[in-house]
């Protein structure tokens, strides 16, 4: 059996003359957390909606758990949990009644799951008689996540799940997603405007802009791209390298073509590095801490500055 849960090939979505998705080909492997990053209108939600069966692609193919025909695809949809844009909730009902409604739909008979889920998303102490229409945005979001997880999905699609959550809620949901991923091996596709938050959650990243996938990369690759380093320009780079290796005891450096040295270790111990160079009579012309911020890196991939 294939190791991927979702595979799209040259997926296109047009709204009249507007191309919301343009030849999108992505593969989501089992057990990973994918962060979908893009500006407003980049096509994140459109992609998620197509995967969830709420919308249809104009061109291209899409395979969910290996199924691509409409009938088989529909069957596989029951293996996913979604929270697209806003939680699908019935305002006239309480949290438990909303959960019960989805349980009936899905044929889930386990009664204990309601309290467990509500507790898990931090709604355990909410007045059981309180109607969802009286919930705050954050509470609705939490309930939406609880409902998305109701069926023990193999793929969880979360569109801006931390929208409206307080900082504590953001951390709780992040931990919850990570826990589900680690303990139940659930694959997660998550979009967020909060890049530092996504950085702490995702294991892989998909950068999308104007309906085009700009880049897909792992957390390691991303960390490398955003890695901070000390840039050293001096009169004797060979000697400086010896000092770095022998006195500082690290080989995490790179000698650049212009003769400068990038030291990826001791980034937060500049004093120690400068003392070592000075004590060995090396004249340092330039000594600075450089590196991309996560936001800057994404903006550079997208090729502009703006609202990510």
């Amino acid at each position, binding site marked *: 059996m294939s190791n991927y849960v979702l595979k799209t090939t040259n997926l296109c979505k047009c709204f009249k003359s507007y191309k919301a998705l343009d030849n999108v080909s992505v593969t989501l492997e089992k057990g990973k957390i994918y962060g979908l990053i893009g500006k407003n209108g980049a096509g994140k939600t459109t992609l998620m909606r197509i995967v969830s069966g709420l919308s*249809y692609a104009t061109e291209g193919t899409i395979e969910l758990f290996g199924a691509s025909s409409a009938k088989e695809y529909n069957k596989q949809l029951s293996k996913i949990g979604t929270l*697209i844009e806003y939680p699908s909730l019935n305002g006239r009902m309480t949290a438990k009644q909303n959960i019960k409604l989805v349980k009936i739909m899905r044929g889930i008979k386990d009664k204990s799951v309601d309290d467990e889920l509500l507790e898990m998303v931090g709604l355990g102490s909410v007045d059981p008689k309180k109607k969802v229409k009286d919930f705050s945005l954050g509470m609705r979001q939490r309930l939406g996540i609880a409902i998305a997880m109701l069926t023990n999905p193999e793929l969880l699609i979360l569109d801006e799940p931390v929208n409206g959550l307080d900082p504590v809620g953001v951390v709780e949901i992040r931990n919850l997603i990570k826990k589900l991923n680690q303990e139940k091996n659930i694959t997660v596709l998550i979009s967020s405007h909060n890049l530092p938050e996504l950085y702490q959650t995702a294991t892989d990243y998909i950068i999308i802009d104007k309906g085009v996938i700009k880049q897909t990369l792992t957390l390691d690759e991303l960390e490398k791209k955003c890695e901070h380093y000390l840039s050293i320009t001096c009169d004797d780079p060979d000697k400086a390298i010896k000092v770095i290796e022998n006195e500082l005891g690290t080989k995490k450096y790179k000698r650049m073509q212009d003769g400068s040295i990038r030291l990826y270790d001791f980034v937060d111990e500049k004093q120690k590095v400068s003392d070592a160079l000075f004590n060995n009579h090396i004249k340092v012309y330039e000594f600075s801490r450089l590196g991309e911020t996560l936001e800057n890196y994404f903006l550079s991939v997208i090729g502009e500055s703006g609202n990510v």
Partner: protein
Amino acid sequence: MFNLIKAELYKMSKMTSIYISFLICCVSAIGVTYVLYGINQGTFELEMSTNVSLLGDSMLVSLLGGILSGVLIAGDFTNKNIHSQIVCGKGRLAIILSKFFAFAIGMVFITLPYVITSVIGFATEMDCHDLIGVPSQFMDVLTNADGVEVNGGHIAKAVLVVLLIVFLYIARLSICIPVAFKTKKTIPVIITGFVSAFLFDIISSAVSSVDGISDFFSALPYSMMTECTMSVDTEGVIKILISGIVFTAAMLAITFAMFRKDEVK
């Protein structure tokens, strides 16, 4: 699909509007019966019959049925409950059918007061005056407008006739289903439910002299309602059933054609 129907029924059980609708139908069915009985007893003037005819089923059921389909179907697009139904993976046809069956059950519930009063009124030979004004098939059964002898067989037939009336109401109001799935808004659905019957009467009258078209209109559930009387024969019952089933199937087919690849916001 059974789970989807159960979920729709659970959702409906939490809707205040369906209980209010039921209550309104109870009050109006009992109220009309009481007034028609009172006219024959001399308690009320004959003119009262015209006034209470506005509370009859033809107006009320069209309105409340429209509200029911609007809240039940279009409401799911507003609160995004439709997302959960789609992600269930049962397919869009199953969603349409489950909503239709839930709607039909809701309609049976709403019309229940008319069904019960009509059958009881007929079976007990209640001395009621004929309804004057807006016609009502239920009241025609209640008042025994056809003047048939009341016996076991005819009581059974009265039950069949009132069930056929309910069936035709469901078929007529199935026109709300494609509107609900297309507009995804409650108000147009309610308007469609309420106005369609009156609109049909106008169009039907306008084309009554045109061969072919008038035959088509007379075969629709709107016209078939007048056939639902105690004098209906087996052939009439079959016609009513075919008319209702074909019309409903057509509405569901139109809905599926529109919704199968529709964007769900």
